[in-house]
């Protein structure tokens, strides 16, 4: 029988800095806050952290997209590690977790500190940091194919794919709206969320069109903040203070052409194969999932993931989310229970892992899902890169 390395690992602690639309602390200070919170939450000390990983690693530019890398945090905490890695070419943001699973299996570390730091709110106060185009410079790499066509932002580029999804699925704006409305309701119960005032269907329909079909409320919220998680080898995890949140299965494949424009399935993106891989590594099925933290860089990613994980059939998300009852905290599949990136802040899929553990450990306070949830499906990214994890609390 095949042994999957992820089954010998578990999340043992999580930490989150303050999250805001403009921090007084530096990006590194926020990262230290999140890291120390996670280490202490696991009941570990700095001396016991022997691995460190992030995605995509430090980017020394003004965008705030990844202001802190392994080296800066390692030095700030004076960690002594046997293994470290930061790099962007991976199955989405969860690449750092998947690398840590491999490192633990290889005997390179036992307790890996994994983090993601965003400083985009501050960055955008001083520059048009969202721009994918560098004025006055010739564009290299895959984005060069978009360069001459005024493709200023990810929202515009990705709207190309979402519009096809609308065309094929027939989803209506009033149906899409249930995703941001539900998440804002959840954020209202989350003291650390960025936007907490409820929104209505009328608010959604009145929010500015960015690029059809995307409205402002379909887009996540740039923020300043950091999340850290500790991934431990299972035998270590069982000695620590929190019940292990086991990494039951992962999806990390690249089965399609790794190009936004040449993807086999333009509207569903690379995620179907990634979800398929995750389900192939576990006996659990979609019906066993208690809660879902689904990537929501844009609302359409969340709709895609509902279908790709098999919570509903292809193009069935519109019916699944109709009226918002199924995905609400009281529903059959509570989705993005802390407000997600749309309302909680764009912590780029690590906010989702933090929220997954918060719920699985029963720490959700006013937003805690009833019935002692034990199984969470979580996912990240879209387009040609995507990653998925199934988390199970012992």
């Amino acid at each position, binding site marked *: 029988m095949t042994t999957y390395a992820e089954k010998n690992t578990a999340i043992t602690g999580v930490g989150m800095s303050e999250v805001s639309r403009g921090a007084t602390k530096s990006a590194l200070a926020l990262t230290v806050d999140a890291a120390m919170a996670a280490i202490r939450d696991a009941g570990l000390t700095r001396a016991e952290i022997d691995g460190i990983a992030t995605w995509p690693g430090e980017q020394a530019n003004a965008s705030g997209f990844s202001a802190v890398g392994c080296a800066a945090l390692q030095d700030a905490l004076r960690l002594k590690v046997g293994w470290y890695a930061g790099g962007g070419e991976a199955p989405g943001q969860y690449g750092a977790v998947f690398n840590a699973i491999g490192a633990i299996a290889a005997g390179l570390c036992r307790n890996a500190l994994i983090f993601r730091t965003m400083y985009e709110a501050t960055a955008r106060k001083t520059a048009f940091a969202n721009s994918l185009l560098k004025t006055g410079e*010739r564009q*290299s790499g895959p984005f060069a*194919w978009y360069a001459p066509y005024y493709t200023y932002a990810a929202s515009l580029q990705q709207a190309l794919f979402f519009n096809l999804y609308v065309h094929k699925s027939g989803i209506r704006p009033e149906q899409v709206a249930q995703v941001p409305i539900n998440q804002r309701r959840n954020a209202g119960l989350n003291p650390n969320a960025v936007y907490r005032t409820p929104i209505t269907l009328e608010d959604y329909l009145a929010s500015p069109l960015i690029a059809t079909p995307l409205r402002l409320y379909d887009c996540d919220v740039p923020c300043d903040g950091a999340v850290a998680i500790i991934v431990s080898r299972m035998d270590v995890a069982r000695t620590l203070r929190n019940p292990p949140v086991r990494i039951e299965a992962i999806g990390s494949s690249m089965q399609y052409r790794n190009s936004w424009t*040449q993807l086999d399935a*333009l509207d569903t993106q690379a995620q179907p194969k990634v979800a398929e891989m995750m389900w192939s590594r576990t006996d659990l099925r979609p019906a066993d999932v208690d809660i879902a933290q689904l990537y929501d860089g844009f609302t359409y990613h969340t709709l895609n993931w509902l279908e790709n994980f098999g919570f509903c059939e292809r193009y069935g998300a519109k019916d699944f989310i109709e009226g918002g009852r199924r995905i609400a905290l009281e529903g059959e599949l509570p989705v993005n229970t802390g407000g997600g990136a749309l309302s909680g802040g764009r912590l780029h899929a690590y906010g989702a892992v933090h929220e997954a553990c918060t719920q699985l450990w029963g720490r959700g306070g006013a937003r805690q899902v009833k019935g002692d949830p034990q199984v969470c499906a979580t996912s990240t990214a879209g387009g040609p890169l995507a990653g998925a994890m199934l988390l199970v609390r012992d």
Partner: protein
Amino acid sequence: MKTPPAPARTLPAIDNDNRAYWTGGEHGRLMICRCGHCGYYVHPPVPFCPQCESSDVAPEPVSGRGRIASFTVNHKVWVPGLAAPYVLALVALDEQEDVRLVCNITHCDPDAVRFDMPVVVWFENHEDLWVPFFRPVEQAA
């Protein structure tokens, strides 16, 4: 008040593989790499055929006709002088569906753009390059 000029178009860096695509428009040609052995179009261009492993791959002119695989109508004015709305699209070439080209659709009301609409290439000179754009194929009267 003066109207700000239209923002400059960011241009691609040119290498041996993509030069023909971005310069063929000088002679009115849309140049796409094609395998001389099996006829497969290879895009983005690289001198290797993923179908038959031949290295006999070189740019050749195509019809310049295709269909709109997907599109979006941009409404946000991202920088001063940007004329919105405008259409960003992916055009699937008539010769081979999985050759999809990013472009703007021009000469057409943005609200009139449709999925699968037949379009044809035209070129605009920017510095040393000829940037491909697409416009709807004129309907016969």
